[in-house]
């Protein structure tokens, strides 16, 4: 149908639709009639106009989308929009370990013992670790002066940072307005960057500006931002917000180039570069490598920038804390925050933050202090943040699967491996965060679906939680909350065999010979015993209280001198009352991958080996 010019449809974006609209418009005139033939000159012009309109429409659409944080797709635009809100995306972070190195037999060629100054370990001294089959290079993040004992030199608490150190130098030219200095490497850990400026022969160290309110005309600060191609660029103050640089000032930037793969978890290091020519070293890792993270993703920037803007760089609401903690510790897997009034027992004037890192269960003390100190700068005067370890309640899984061998080519062992990986995947998908619930029936459903040959499964669970006692000469009492009711069908349940409680071993004051354990009598009493052969010799029948209804274990004052666990902890393993497990505040529930037991059994009826139910073995629902 012919249309008037006023009716031409101008809302379409596709080339074909625009062409059709133009042709429809041309139907309304009689001067040129060949617009519908592809070879005609008019068709050439119509195509050209449609193409120009199409490109124009696409460009306009993209430009409009990229103007807003929600719809922007290109990283440089997302970063730029976030900058409008005052948010700077975090850079890559290098994995960091803390170790103590001892250099032995350090004697110079002339037989003298080198001085402490001679033995200073320079920044960038390299180390190597082999982790999960791959080699990774680490380097010292600072210069370390050792302590010495004759020919032995000890470097305590050295920070080993994964990656390679690099240095860029720039000369400030005041002819160039608004100078920005782009680092020559893309993967830079901004938190490990040092910036020195040599002005007239005097070198000063500049620090990264994080809070504009503390900056004056003499503040030696630099600013960073991510440029269009993802590289970090530096710029300096203008004489008002930070001291301005002078013509010819030499800027030296030292930083670490972050590796593509993070060796989080690595804990065995060997020395690569010599210190003053000496390499006869032994290294004890006090904190395994942790904290490696990629630069903030586009989605993460979009999420955090708005939260950051809402919090206005102040910590008031719980969400403010959540947003800030994730900014200060990008490697966080899960963050839970609650006010002291909600704590048990209530502690007014505090905010509790439970943080679980990505590749570990707990934060190191250094990381806790770092996060806490950063939060302190922003929180209200009367509120103190407390970083606590996430209480991890491990779920121990024991499952027996029945399978039909005629429906699979997998062996029993391979099916067991497949089931184990299915359980691990279930853990990743459903139990990776605070406020999670372990639903037993969901797990059994997933196990049944792991392979078509699996006909059924009997899955039993136990709970395990670590008690981290203080080893001291004074008696101390402890409580351990499992957050879930415990199995106690009647008073005195399993009294003779230790109730439902199993613990790892420990030694107590006054008995340096026997390793002691806890169990319970089914009546709510925690008992302490040691083993004589396989006989339990009870030393204290009222060592504490087990509250089966709440899952709270209270241990009376006791002197603990050592534990069997190397991390000075005691594992409490108990049977829960129900099969579904919930995580209360600050608790994380997690399936312990190392403790998954899978037994694959041939279903004798399905396979035709037996009939009428004869010879079919069942698994007890209380076995583990």
């Amino acid at each position, binding site marked *: 149908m012919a249309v008037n010019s006023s009716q031409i449809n101008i809302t379409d974006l596709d*080339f*074909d639709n625009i062409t059709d609209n133009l042709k429809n418009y041309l139907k309304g005139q009689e*001067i*040129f*009639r*060949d617009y519908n*033939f*592809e*070879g*005609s*000159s*008019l068709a*050439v*012009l119509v*195509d*050209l106009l*449609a*193409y120009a309109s*199409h490109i124009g429409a696409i460009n306009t659409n993209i430009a409009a989308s990229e103007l807003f944080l929600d719809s922007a797709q290109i990283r440089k635009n997302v970063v730029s929009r976030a900058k409008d809100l005052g948010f700077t995306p975090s850079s890559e972070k290098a994995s960091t370990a803390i170790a103590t190195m001892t250099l032995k037999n350090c004697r110079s060629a002339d037989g003298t013992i080198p001085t402490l100054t001679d033995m200073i370990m320079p920044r960038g001294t390299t180390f190597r670790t082999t982790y999960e089959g791959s080699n990774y290079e680490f380097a010292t993040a600072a210069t370390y002066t050792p302590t010495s004992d004759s020919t032995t030199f000890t470097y305590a608490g050295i920070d080993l940072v994964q990656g390679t150190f690099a240095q860029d130098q720039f000369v400030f030219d005041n002819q160039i307005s608004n100078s920005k200095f782009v680092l020559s490497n893309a993967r830079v850990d901004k938190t490990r960057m040092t910036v020195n400026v040599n002005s007239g022969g005097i070198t000063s160290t500049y620090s990264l500006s994080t809070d504009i309110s503390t900056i004056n005309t003499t503040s030696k600060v630099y600013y960073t931002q991510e440029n269009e191609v993802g590289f970090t660029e530096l710029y300096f103050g203008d004489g008002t917000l930070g001291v301005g640089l002078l013509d010819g000032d030499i800027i030296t930037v030292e930083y670490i180039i972050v590796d593509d793969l993070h060796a989080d978890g690595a804990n065995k290091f060997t020395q690569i570069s010599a210190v003053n020519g000496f390499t006869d070293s032994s290294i004890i890792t006090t904190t395994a490598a942790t904290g490696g993270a990629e630069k903030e993703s586009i989605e993460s920037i979009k999420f955090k920038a708005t939260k950051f803007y809402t919090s206005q760089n102040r910590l008031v609401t719980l969400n403010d804390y959540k947003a800030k903690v994730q900014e200060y510790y990008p490697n966080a897997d899960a963050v839970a925050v609650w006010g002291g009034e909600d704590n048990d027992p209530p502690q007014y004037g505090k905010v509790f933050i439970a943080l679980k890192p990505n590749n570990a269960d707990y934060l190191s003390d250094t990381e806790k202090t770092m996060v806490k100190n950063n939060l302190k700068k922003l929180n209200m005067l009367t509120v103190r943040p407390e970083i606590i370890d996430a209480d991890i309640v491990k779920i121990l899984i024991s499952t027996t699967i029945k399978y039909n061998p005629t429906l699979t080519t997998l062996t029993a062992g391979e099916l067991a491996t497949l089931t184990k990986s299915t359980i691990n995947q279930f853990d990743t998908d459903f139990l990776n965060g605070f406020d999670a619930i372990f639903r037993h029936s969901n797990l059994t459903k997933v196990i049944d679906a792991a392979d078509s040959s699996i006909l059924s499964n009997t899955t039993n669970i136990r709970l395990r939680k670590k008690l981290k006692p203080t080893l001291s000469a004074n008696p101390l009492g402890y409580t351990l909350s499992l957050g879930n009711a415990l199995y106690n069908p009647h008073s005195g349940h399993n009294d003779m065999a230790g109730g439902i409680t199993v613990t790892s071993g420990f030694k107590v004051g006054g008995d340096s010979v026997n390793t002691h354990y806890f169990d319970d009598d089914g009546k709510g009493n925690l008992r302490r015993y040691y083993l004589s052969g396989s006989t339990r010799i009870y030393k204290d029948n009222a060592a504490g209280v087990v509250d089966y209804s709440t899952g709270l274990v209270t241990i009376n004052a006791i002197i603990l001198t050592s534990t069997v666990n190397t991390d000075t902890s005691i594992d409490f393993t108990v049977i829960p009352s129900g099969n579904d497990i919930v995580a209360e505040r600050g608790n994380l529930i997690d399936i312990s991958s190392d403790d998954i037991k899978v037994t694959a059994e041939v279903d004798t009826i399905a396979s035709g080996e037996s009939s009428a139910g004869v010879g079919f073995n069942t698994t007890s629902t209380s076995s583990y």
Partner: protein
Amino acid sequence: MVDYVVNKGKNVAIKEAYKDLDLFFTAHPITGDVATKSDSDAVRRAVRNIVLTNYYERPFKPSLGGNVRGLLFELDTDRQVRRARKQMAKAIMTFEPRVENVRCTFRVEDNSLDVTVYYSIKNGLNNQEIQFTVNRTR
């Protein structure tokens, strides 16, 4: 100019059916408007446009055209010439529904290509011919 056909020994004018813009954009000598092409001239210009259009030249229509300028860089073999002739005739038949009985001839000489296209206009003039030469300029 109006086309004529011979009907029973008389010249009969055909109603102006096709009218197109002249891509050379020559001005009308009196009105100063852009000149137009009509009927057999419009079809001739359309055939010429198709033959001289290279593949991928028209936006979103990669296969439109006779690709004759693209052929200047092909090897000079009989097989190539035959293939190109067929290809060109097919393109005209596909994209110009107003013509039939299309036949193309090529003559390769002195780094140039003489192309002649023979066709008949449906319900119009028969035995039309369009001829042009294309040269490599580099």
